[in-house]
């Protein structure tokens, strides 16, 4: 079985003896100990396993680990800055007390982070289209609130930066 070289959260990892059919999810969770990415359905339906591949959201239960070789993988553990500064979405999730059981929230945050990366001021319809991950507890009102709150903060920050430049 091959050895995989994966770039996860800015670090290079060598994972030995990987069955070539292993979904990325299980390499992250079992081999690399990055358990923030969750297993919910195994079929790409629920989004609990959402990570970024070169900045785009993917459902890691439904792509092979081998297909992530040579690409930049970001998981929930790598979303905050190197100095531990939380992403504005993470801050907003805490401020608005979004989670109930919390199991889906890493996937929700990763979906939202990818959205904001490509669209810094999404409309409600764009949020609807991007946020298809399932929350069994029904925290959708707060997820929307937290995204909008993070958008507001990020645009204030960038406006300040532009103003200062």
């Amino acid at each position, binding site marked *: *079985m091959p050895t995989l070289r994966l770039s996860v959260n800015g670090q290079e990892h060598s994972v030995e003896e990987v*069955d070539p*059919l*292993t*979904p990325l999810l*299980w390499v992250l969770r*079992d*081999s690399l*100990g*990055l*358990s*923030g*990415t*969750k*297993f*919910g*359905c*195994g*079929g790409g*339906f*629920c989004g*609990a396993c959402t990570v970024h591949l070169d900045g785009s959201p993917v459902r890691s239960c439904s792509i092979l680990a081998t297909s992530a070789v040579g690409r930049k993988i970001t998981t*929930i*553990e790598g*979303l*905050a800055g190197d100095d531990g500064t*939380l992403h504005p*979405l*993470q801050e907003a*999730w*805490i*401020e608005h*007390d*979004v*989670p*109930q*059981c*919390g*199991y*889906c*929230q*890493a996937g929700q*945050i990763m979906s939202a982070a990818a959205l904001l990366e490509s669209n810094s001021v999404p409309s409600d319809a764009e*949020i*609807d*289209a991007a*946020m*298809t*991950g*399932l*929350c*069994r*507890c*029904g*925290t*959708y*009102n*707060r*997820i*929307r609130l937290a995204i909008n709150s993070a958008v507001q903060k990020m645009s204030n920050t960038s406006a300040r930066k532009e103003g200062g430049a």
Partner: protein
Amino acid sequence: MNDQYLHDVIRDAEAAFEASPETRTQTLGRRSFLKLTGLAGGGLALAFYLEGGTQALAAQASGEFAPNGFIHISPDGSILIYSKNPEIGQGIKTAFPMIIAEELDADWEDVRVEQAPIDQAVYGRQAAGGSRSIPSSWDQLRQAGAVARAMLVAAAAQEWGVPAGECRTEKSAVIHSRSGRRLGYGELANRAAALPVPDPKSLTLKERADYRLLGTRVTGVDNYKLVTGQPLFGIDQVVPDMLYATYTKCPAPGGRVGQANLDEIRSLPGVKQAFVLEGNGQLAELRPGVAIVANSTWAAISAKQQLRVTWDESEAAKDSWSDAVKRARELANQSGSEILGETGDTAKAFSSAAKTVEAFYTYPFVSHAPLEPQNCTAWYRDGVMDIWAPTQTPQRGLTSVAKMLDIPEDRITIHQTRVGGGFGRRLMNDSMCEAATISKQIGAPVKLQWTREDDMAHDFYRVGGFHSFKGAVDDSGKLSAWEDHFVTFSSDGQKPVTGGNMSTSEFPLPLIANFRLTQTLLPLVTPCGPWRAPRSNAVAFAGQCFFHELAVAAGRDHLEFLLEVMGKPRWLDPGSSRALNTGRAADVIRLAAEKAGWGKSLPEGRGLGLAFYFSHAGHFAEIAEVSVGASKKLTVHKVTVAADVGPIVNLSGAENQCQGAVIDGFSTMLGLELSIENGRVQESNFDQYPLLQLAHAPEVEVHFIQSDFPPTGLGEPALPPAAPAICNAIFAASGHRVRELPLSREGFSV
């Protein structure tokens, strides 16, 4: 506090300091290891030995004191509070410590929360279910905080040589009002630890007006860990050198393993062992199946996909939902074979009725589908079992494992993990029984992982059911008679399955002068269990939609009709504060109406729908505002919730529970159903069991009436009124009366 109390405090403190730290280590055992390290720096820790569930006996950071209690105040001022019950998304890990912190007058910034170990002797009941955590622990936790506070006050009074009565507390400090002297709890912790524990009954608890923390918005104590992806859940547990397992059972409950390609499975990459377990005869513990043990989760799941089993289904379920529907429809025009209750004279009321309405209501089986699939990590070695489990009932699980595997209970430790959704599914500990059995068999630590397909195929389902109603209104437009022939299921032919029972105390029966409730049981093998707001979650849909039908038939406004049925304010069971109070009910109904703008004019195709329900001692009124467009395209714009559950602990968490319950209710009524044929649930994953997505979630606005009645739980009672409120709004918007769920069956889509 009087002088005699202080005298007692000092006397008992002297005795309490006798035992040495060495003695403590010896008597603690491994269960308390974690807490012992927490005590290394000294300080005040409180443990409560429950005698009859009320009396607190010991609270010293020394001696025979087992430090796995509720509170530990360190000399550095940090306050560690243990939250005793499972956190399943109901917010209890934040709410419980808030209750303690309020009476303790702790600064919430100083508080750190940890999940308590499982120990019945110390904590009493440790379970999540029935919306009972807050009501059953309210006094105990307030007393815990008050006792600690009293000891800190006594310590400060002693230090200053002043009467305790001259001292007050705020923000983790004792203050001597007259002199302005102030000592932080950390500075007092060691001195307080030397004092005896006051009788909690001697202490005065705070009035609600004096609350500083309760009723405010506090973000969940695990939120930082959740948003940064740190391990918290059952599925995240890692034990050194552990193996990974799957367990495959017959898709029809009751089936046994016939033949299986075990040799082939054993030869697959990563597979360590594959073997058959016979089961212990209990569907809720260990069913027969094939265990595959491998060196990674994927190797175990991959091998499971190649497992071929011929099942012996001679004693397996043959249940068919479509047959049950047919049979129930045949029964629709008859009374049930069993009379559950009768009051007044329904025959007379019907004969003199101005209007009579008949309707047949149906709701399907549904699954709990918590997002974290069932899993459990177990480690058996040298006669000792450690279990890491996302469970709602750890104590019950421990008992099951002990009995099943013949291991003394004191040799089993259940480690509580955060739980990725409960909804009642994890009241059962089948995955725990499986993991423990597999670990004992292989003599190694093992993490058992169910797939989503396993989870949906082997649930304890919310049972489907049927109501054949007949109701009447009299000449004056008043509700005058109500008949319900309830067709439900039974696994023993004697009584309904769990969650499939009705009683004459179910709202609105106790308020109706002439009613008749009858029942017919259909046979069922498929296991059923409590699903968020058991019974009420389904019965509220049928009953409160039919109630609205009667209001419409009477030509009455639903709100007015409902308030009329409530009558004058009174307790329906005067002896119980957990009973329906018609005054509280009317208050939440009026509040919901006011907030939602009941009676406002709306454009064509848009309507408001109302429902009240009383379950789990909570009074809830909800009003939905919906639009029904062409081709039955449904939009639920908003649901307004008004609730009275007594005082609110964490306003943020409380609102979150209500919002989530309403969205859960809508998600379930919209498109969720299980079709059971030949004993098998046909749906296997979220593509066939489509939970609601964010795009279609209504805005949910929550209003609480914070009454001074004892607090009641919030995990469940906001759910039952959601479905009837939305269905009644659909009627208002479109004239279409929904009598069968899910809505997708009647052609609605979002």
